[in-house]
């Protein structure tokens, strides 16, 4: 606490300055962060301050007169470290040290110690000034940082799925990890110092791709690239690469962090999947095309021919006497029945009207024809924003046909609702009934007797979609399936 200036002694007069004794008192009373005290020429404590009490744990009356070696750990005392510290300060004028010291209660702290030799005007040693600072917390923080850095280094070093390494500001490799060695084939000592363009194929180097990537990373902070890279043995792999520019706090470019992943297998897997899908889609299209062709043949030839024959038989029957007339009429009836069966066949081969009307309308027709006979009420909710391609419509129709047939055969339902909608790049369909629902867990397990489940699911999965059957929220059974609908710029459809 500074003394308040009295009115008779205006501020700025020499009387405002504290006396040397006051200064000592102020220092002793107020400085908390540093232990500041004096030792005599032999190392006994002459003065004490608040910081010393706080850091070392001794009150002034306990500390004064003691030899300062009590602040050292026993092992240091055994090695005569306190004496050597004073001797060094005596010779050099000053001694600085960092190390463990001991508090009154025996606990240790990490101390920064400066001992300064105090000579008077005649050059006589009058004692030492000692300033001690408790560095325990800072040391712990530094230790923690070092450990964290070490852990991170080990982590990076041992990661084997990713090549993680650093480039200097000009693109030369300055660090390397296990993943880099595994993916690229170089050992750390072979690659350190080399320019990272060695990882690029010749044509990319010629096109300036390595430099371009570094420039983009510098401008944008990071760059992601996917493409062929070259291993040490010259073989290629498909890489996903992220390069991050590393700037220090003064915005100076210190280098680049580079993370590379070998995507060759994923790429192969994706391609194989795409090939398989394409093949399956092709098979489905070929199958539908064949069915349609047969349907049209039956329709355009067999049904026409039989219709003509039946009509002529009936005309002939009217011109013939009995019993021939009756016989011919009966034959004509049978031909008409056969025409009816052929029409059903055509329907099965090619859902009726699917080429002429919307999917919802075709399903509506089908339900109108079937549901009445089954004693079922039905609803078709059409939420399609756009009509799917014909082949998708056929697949949806066929699965619905099967699902509705199951409702009729197994559900004991009174109402069935078919809902059509777009979901992602495809058509999501729901066939929900209010029947008995799935009572046996086995119902969900495919089997020869199990509701054409296999057929429905295979139809959906063959074209890359999914199919599921579950118990409805309010009872009954819900069949739900999604069929991908390729965009119009995709593969040509029939």
């Amino acid at each position, binding site marked *: 606490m500074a003394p308040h200036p009295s009115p008779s002694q205006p501020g700025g007069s020499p009387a405002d300055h504290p006396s040397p004794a006051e200064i000592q008192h102020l220092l002793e009373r107020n400085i908390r962060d540093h232990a500041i005290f004096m030792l005599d020429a032999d190392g006994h404590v002459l003065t004490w301050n608040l910081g010393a009490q706080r850091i070392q744990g001794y009150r002034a009356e306990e500390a004064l007169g003691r030899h300062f070696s009590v602040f050292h750990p026993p092992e240091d005392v055994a090695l005569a470290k306190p004496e050597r510290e004073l001797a060094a300060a005596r010779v050099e004028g000053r001694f600085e040290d960092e190390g463990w010291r001991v508090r009154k209660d025996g606990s240790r702290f990490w101390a920064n110690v400066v001992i300064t030799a105090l000579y008077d005007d005649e050059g006589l040693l009058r004692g030492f000034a000692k300033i001690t600072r408790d560095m325990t917390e800072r040391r712990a923080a530094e230790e923690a940082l070092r450990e964290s850095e070490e852990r991170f280094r080990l982590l990076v070093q041992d990661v084997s799925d990713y090549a993680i390494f650093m480039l200097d500001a000009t693109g030369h490799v300055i660090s390397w990890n296990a993943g880099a060695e595994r993916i690229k084939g170089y050992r750390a000592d072979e690659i350190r110092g080399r320019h990272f363009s060695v990882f690029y194929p010749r044509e990319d180097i010629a096109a300036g791709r390595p430099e371009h990537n570094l420039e983009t990373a510098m401008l944008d902070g990071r760059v992601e690239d996917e493409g062929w890279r070259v291993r040490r043995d010259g073989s290629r792999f498909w890489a996903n690469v992220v390069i991050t520019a590393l700037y220090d706090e003064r915005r100076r470019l210190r280098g680049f962090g580079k993370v590379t992943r070998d995507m060759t297998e994923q790429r192969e897997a994706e391609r194989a999947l795409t090939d398989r899908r394409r093949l399956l889609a092709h098979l489905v299209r070929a199958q539908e095309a064949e069915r349609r062709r047969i349907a049209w043949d039956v*329709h355009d030839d067999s049904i026409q021919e*039989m*219709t003509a024959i039946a*009509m002529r038989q*009936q005309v002939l029957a009217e011109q013939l006497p009995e019993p021939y007339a009756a016989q011919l009429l009966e034959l004509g009836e049978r031909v008409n029945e056969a025409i009816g069966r052929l029409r059903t066949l055509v329907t099965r081969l090619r859902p*009726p009207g699917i080429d*002429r*009307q919307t999917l919802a309308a075709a399903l*509506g027709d089908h339900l*109108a024809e079937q549901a009445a006979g089954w004693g079922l009420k039905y609803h078709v909710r059409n939420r399609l924003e756009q009509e799917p391609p014909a082949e998708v419509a056929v697949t949806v129709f066929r699965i619905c046909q099967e699902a509705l047939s199951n409702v009729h055969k197994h559900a004991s339902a009174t109402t069935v609702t078919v809902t059509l909608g777009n979901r992602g790049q495809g058509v999501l369909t729901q066939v929900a009934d209010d029947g008995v629902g799935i009572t046996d867990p086995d119902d969900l397990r495919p089997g020869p007797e199990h509701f054409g489940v296999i057929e429905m699911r295979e139809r959906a999965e063959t074209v890359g979609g999914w199919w599921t059957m579950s118990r409805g929220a309010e009872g009954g059974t819900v069949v739900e399936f999604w069929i991908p609908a390729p965009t119009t710029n995709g593969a040509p459809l029939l």
Partner: protein
Amino acid sequence: MTTPVPATPKITVLVCDDDARICDALCEVVDAQPDLTAVGVANDAATAAVLARQYLPVVAIVDVRMPGGGAQAVRALREHSPDTRILAFSAHNDNGAIEEMRGAGAHRYLVKGAPVRQIVAAIRELAGSEADEL
């Protein structure tokens, strides 16, 4: 036309179908009836229009599928011979096909395989009730 002229004129029928076998059979069915006569056969929509203007048939039997389209044939018939009653006759029995023909102006719809008696009755009905709509 060598048969003696009957007291009442016969109902004239135009047959429109791209299948020759169906056309022949329909003509045979029509001509076997004392009160009906087939006046022409069209295998496509364009010919149907020409023959409709030429004969102004009382009834036209029109298939759903033929070159130019069954619906187009119906529209052409209605334009060139507005009084002609139209019987759509098709192997298709889906609502889409029926709606398409009805929308074009067909008055009745019969599915192929229907008994001759029904076809003949439909022709007579259409000829007799010109105000009737499908």
